[in-house]
């Protein structure tokens, strides 16, 4: 099970990142859950200074931008 967290307060880029992460996970055929983290103090606990951010199994993979589906696949795959 992959735990995918989307950090952000709910802006357009946050929503786009969530959509991209879901598509990437579906195409990879993995078992996953998506958790949206909107509370600013919780976001800060990850050391994330700019949002949106993508966290896979506890590790921040990207912050401040929305990568492509292919890039997100690599991030989920640990590459």
């Amino acid at each position, binding site marked *: 099970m992959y735990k995918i967290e989307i950090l*952000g*307060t709910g*802006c*357009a*880029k946050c929503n786009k990142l969530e959509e991209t992460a879901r598509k990437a996970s579906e195409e990879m055929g993995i078992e996953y859950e998506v958790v949206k983290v909107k509370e*600013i103090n919780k*976001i*800060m606990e*990850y*050391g*994330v*200074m*700019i*949002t*949106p*951010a993508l966290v896979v199994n506890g*590790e*921040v*993979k*990207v*912050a*401040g*931008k929305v990568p492509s589906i292919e890039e997100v696949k690599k991030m989920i795959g640990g590459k």
Partner: protein
Amino acid sequence: MGECACNTGTKLLYSCSGNADVGEIADRAARKLRKEGYSHGSCIAGIGAGISGYIQSAKGADVNITIDGCSVACSRKILENIGIVPVSYIVTEMGFKKGSSPATPEAIETVCENIRKGNSATVKEKTFAAADGGCGCGGKC
């Protein structure tokens, strides 16, 4: 902190962590600039420690700025170690001498003003981090 990237031009600011007077000036200037809204603060120690959130935030920012106390430039080198070349400011290159420059409000404002005006003498200088990852200053910077 917690800046939304929907706003363009995200600037993250880092300062020297040293205990010398010029390090204190750097630290307090960074805090002052952040409070003014010049930039957002971040944590150079977090990057040095390999915390993924700090590292990815630096990579996602439009501009990263370092204020180092002395020319050892630990903050700048920590960012260079993760492939980022920041806009670099160094307090001792602004007329302050290490060991005889108390962190007065005037000194802090002088550094802040240089940064507001973009008076960086070192931004284009290429540096290489020490092989052992340490700055070799013995806690003086």
